[in-house]
């Protein structure tokens, strides 16, 4: 009896909530609404930030010398323009909307939509680059009309739809939280690569 009580006491002593590993209590496999929002926001934000930075779509431009803010992307006036704040605010606002929508749709659909969006984010710029390569090196006619983000959207969307259709549902489920790491790491690779020429290889 004494031993039983001791073990019980030891259990209480060890089962404090500050242990990060073994004492983790399993919770439901389906995240709460807040969990769905938080995870979706954290996947969408880095993805959208990378897209906005690469397209140079800031919500506003800050001119530090004049101390004024202009809507959208504005050219340099007096002193350098700053777009970083504008990319962040636009990405955060967009990710908020995406996160809010995510809480209203069924989980399996959300996981498939995540695969679609990530595939689209990869295929759309890849298609644009492929079209530009085609225009410069392969086209035997005036193909300048193909040099458009909207033309590249067509193969991008089709490719992403095909990938999503054939993507196994179980893999989409298992991969969902992994996008939290895949998206920012790939985003940083893309953004880091864009810095090579202007700064690191100069």
């Amino acid at each position, binding site marked *: 009896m004494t031993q039983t009580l001791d073990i019980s006491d*030891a*259990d209480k002593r*060890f089962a*404090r*909530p*500050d*242990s*990060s*590993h*073994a*004492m*983790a*209590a*399993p*919770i439901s*496999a389906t*995240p709460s609404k*807040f*969990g769905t*929002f*938080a*995870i979706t*926001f*954290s*996947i969408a*934000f*880095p993805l959208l*930030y990378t897209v906005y*930075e690469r397209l140079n779509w800031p919500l506003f431009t*800050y001119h*530090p*010398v004049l101390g004024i803010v202009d809507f959208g992307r504005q050219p340099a006036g007096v*002193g*350098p323009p*700053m777009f*970083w*704040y504008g*990319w*962040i605010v636009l*990405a*955060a606002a967009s*990710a908020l909307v995406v*996160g809010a929508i995510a809480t209203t749709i069924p989980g399996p659909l959300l996981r498939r939509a995540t695969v679609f969006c990530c595939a689209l984010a990869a295929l759309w710029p890849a298609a644009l680059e492929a079209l530009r390569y085609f225009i410069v090196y392969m086209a035997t006619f005036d193909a300048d009309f193909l040099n458009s983000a909207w033309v590249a959207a067509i193969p991008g969307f089709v490719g992403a739809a095909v990938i999503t259709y054939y993507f196994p549902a179980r893999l989409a489920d298992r991969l969902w*939280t*992994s996008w*939290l*790491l895949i998206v*920012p*790491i790939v*985003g*940083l690779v893309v*953004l*880091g690569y864009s*810095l090579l020429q*202007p*700064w*690191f290889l*100069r």
Partner: protein
Amino acid sequence: MNFVTSIMREDTFWRILLFVHFLLAVGLLAAITLQAVAVLMPARQVAGSFSERSPVPAASYAALIAVVYVLQALMGAWIYVKYRTYVRIPMEQLRHFWTVGSFELKEHVVTMGMGLLPAYWYFWRQPLSAEHENVRRWVTVFLALSVWYAFVVGHVANDFRGVGS
């Protein structure tokens, strides 16, 4: 700003801000590093079905880390105005391109980390989900690496033109 410049020189004001930014960075660095170490080094199994407690109460300060991370990012965004006009232009003129490039990457790294904070906070909520243990670990490590990178690059930029330079 007029109120501040009536009390002290503008340069002094920015240097004080930079120093507070540094102090917060040290605190954040310590907290996130301890947490990352705690998740990377699982508690040892001891006799019976119990586990030794981790020496660091990792879950208890996840919210604090998230708050300080946001505060740091906001403070960095404020000081960034001065950096863009007062530091980066001479940096370019003196051809310190690696420093400028590293600082540009720092902006992106910190932004990515900030985007991960809602998920990070969710994964560290009590009770901790065993199912999310792996993603919790790597999100924490990602944040720790982002803070370390930002700290080192910020320090190099400070050495070019900042407190004590």
